[in-house]
């Protein structure tokens, strides 16, 4: 009797313990995660970042090493994943209480992560960090809806139009000038569309489509008070026009599937001659292209030149047990030295004016002027907290609008009905 009871009881007890452990409260990260200090006072911090390949990862690893060089008692362990995956993973990790200490965040996706991040205002004040070197737009993009700074920016930039100089020359189309308008753009795109090639890449992803829509109509998908306004008549008009480029004017190739790198791949493969893009991709695209890349502002509509800007930076997770050390690491990661190094490695346009020259030295001729002009008319892209889902729905439902199989008002109304009520 006793012999049989014991193992059964042990198994039952273990099962109960497991069930209790899984069912127990794990939200909030009460124990802290992502950083630790050993008995000698050496602190190790984890840093999660997105990366598109080995070259990019190496550049971030060099930045992590720079933190250790600046303060040998700090060690930063880099973890990378792809951009799309990164935000899904990070929200899950914050929810599960296992967030890294240093959290990378993009301005469009701050809302989804804000609850898991530490407001940095006090740390900034006590550190005496000179914030005036950061561009205003880069700081503004990483402020939460409560006005607190949640991350120090490393890059920021406005959407501009990249174009293939050789295709323009072959088609006998004069190269676009800063401040050009929608009509010039449409006639250039038409002249460039022939023999299976197209004038421009169109894709319903947030920055690509809505920057062109904003430039034409002056309206963003999210109002200044933070509500989704996809059914705003001017916005609907803008999206209809954007769709016409594909199925009416046929100056952009049809959208197939959900691969958001498709517009850039088409540009690099010379299937299209123009693509709207931010400075974060510019040097990468230039290095992959066999042709000379030109940079110009987005074609302006009646509302005058407008464009969207976005940027990224590094924040500290609310569950980090070593917030001061993490903040010190972030300061080094966004220092002029590190940003200059990242810029000369061909990464994004630095958020610090003191580090931007290294980036412009690498950039194609004319990029500096075009970006300066675009920055003047740039506004940070406003988003909702559930932007990740809205963005996915926009790709899903506006794709058919571009292809001509559904109408812009219907598609936008459908998304608005699903997400606008929150």
């Amino acid at each position, binding site marked *: *009797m006793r*012999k*049989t*009871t014991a*193992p*059964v*009881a042990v*198994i*039952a007890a*273990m*099962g109960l313990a*497991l*069930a209790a452990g*899984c*069912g127990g409260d794990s*939200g909030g990260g009460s124990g802290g995660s992502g950083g630790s200090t050993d008995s000698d006072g050496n602190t190790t911090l984890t840093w999660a970042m997105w990366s598109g390949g080995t070259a990019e990862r190496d550049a971030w690893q060099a930045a992590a090493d720079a933190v250790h060089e600046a303060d040998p008692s700090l060690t930063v362990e880099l973890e990378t994943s792809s951009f799309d995956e990164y935000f*899904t993973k990070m*929200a*899950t990790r*914050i*929810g*599960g209480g296992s967030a890294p200490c240093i959290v990378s965040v993009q301005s469009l996706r701050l809302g989804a992560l804000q*609850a*898991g991040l530490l407001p940095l205002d006090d740390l900034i004040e006590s550190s005496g960090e000179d914030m005036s070197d950061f561009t205003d737009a880069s700081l503004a993009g990483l402020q939460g809806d409560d006005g607190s700074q949640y991350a120090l920016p490393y890059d920021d930039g406005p959407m501009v139009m990249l174009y293939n100089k050789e295709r323009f020359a072959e088609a006998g189309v004069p190269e676009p000038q800063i401040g050009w308008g929608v009509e010039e753009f449409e006639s250039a795109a038409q002249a460039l569309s022939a023999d*299976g090639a197209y004038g421009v890449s169109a894709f319903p992803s947030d920055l690509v489509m809505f920057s062109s829509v904003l430039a034409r109509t002056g309206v963003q998908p999210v109002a200044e008070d933070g509500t989704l306004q996809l059914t705003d008549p001017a916005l609907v008009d803008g999206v209809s026009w954007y769709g016409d480029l594909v199925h009416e004017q046929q100056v952009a*190739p*049809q*959208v*197939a*599937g*959900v*691969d958001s790198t498709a517009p850039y791949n088409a540009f690099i493969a010379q*299937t299209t001659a123009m693509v709207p893009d931010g400075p974060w991709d510019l040097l990468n695209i230039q290095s992959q292209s066999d042709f000379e890349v030109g940079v110009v502002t987005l074609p302006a509509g009646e509302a005058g030149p407008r464009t969207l800007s976005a940027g990224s930076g590094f924040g500290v997770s609310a569950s980090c047990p070593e917030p001061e050390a993490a903040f010190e690491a972030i300061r080094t990661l966004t220092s002029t030295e590190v940003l200059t190094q990242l810029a000369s490695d061909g990464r994004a346009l630095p958020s610090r004016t003191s580090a931007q020259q290294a980036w412009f030295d690498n950039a194609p001729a004319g990029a500096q002027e075009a970006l300066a002009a675009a920055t003047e008319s740039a506004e940070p892209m406003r988003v909702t907290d*559930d932007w*990740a*889902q809205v963005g*996915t729905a926009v*790709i*899903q*439902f506006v*794709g*058919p609008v571009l*292809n001509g*199989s*559904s109408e812009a008002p219907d*598609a936008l109304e459908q998304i608005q009905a*699903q997400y606008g009520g929150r």
Partner: protein
Amino acid sequence: MSVSSTARPPAPSASTSASTPAPRPSRGRRDDLVPALGFTAPSMLGLALFTAVPIGMSLVMSFYSWPIIGERSVRGVGNYVDLLTSPQFRRVVLNTVLFTVLYLPLNLLVSLGIALWVASVRRGRQALRVIFFIPVVTPIVANVLVWRMIYTPGGALDGLAQSAGVDAPNFLGDPRWAMASLVLMSVWQGFGYNMLVFSAALDGIPASINEAASLDGVSAWSRLRHITLPMISPSMFFASTMTLITTFQVFAQPYLLTGGGPGVATETLVLFVYRQGFASFALGSAAAAAWVLFALILLVTAVQFAGQKKWVNYDV
């Protein structure tokens, strides 16, 4: 105490039954129980940890509003009511059923057809089976990348159509074609498995039966209809049941090829569950949708089992 009493042999008559003679029937069984439990403990624990607990948890979660960050609260059947009254969810279920209705017969026809053809080939039979099996063992992500290049405008199919002087449709971007394109790609990816199952069954049919029938002047078609198909019907039942279950769970193809679009044309149940859970972080709603899927699969499988008596022939 109750635990140990249930572990005992139920009745003395059972343990002393003469049909299975054992050296020490009644004492031996009880003594074996401890080591037996010890031996099964690892797999019992594994089963509890990785199967029973998650299943139980998901059932509990489906009755909660369970965000990934923030407060949880009991919702009762609210998640189920929301799902069953949501037009989007109904469309998702419809898409899943549509995918299954298109995919299952096509998969069985193609795999059976190719299995029959391969069985009739005299030389290189094994090589052919290996070739047709390759898509099954290739990672689906790699397959999808290739098929994206085939389907995309300006891709392989479009190029082929252009050279014939017609314009191919936008297979993944056109709502009328997207589901059919997914089904076609999935059949290519999946038929090899069932083909192998059918091939094994065909090889198991004694050659003498077919020989006797052809000596009696039975036509090839009648031999297929009255000998071959009944003889492999258990395999067909196995293949159709297993394929049906995995078909209801289709995820990778729509996730990677169309993202559920255009619109909701290819959004399937598991893709919906994934999005609810890991894009919207509504774990309660995701769990509820997963249980709806479970109920659907259970129902259809039960119908299949009930129907098998009519056509599956085990008397060989």
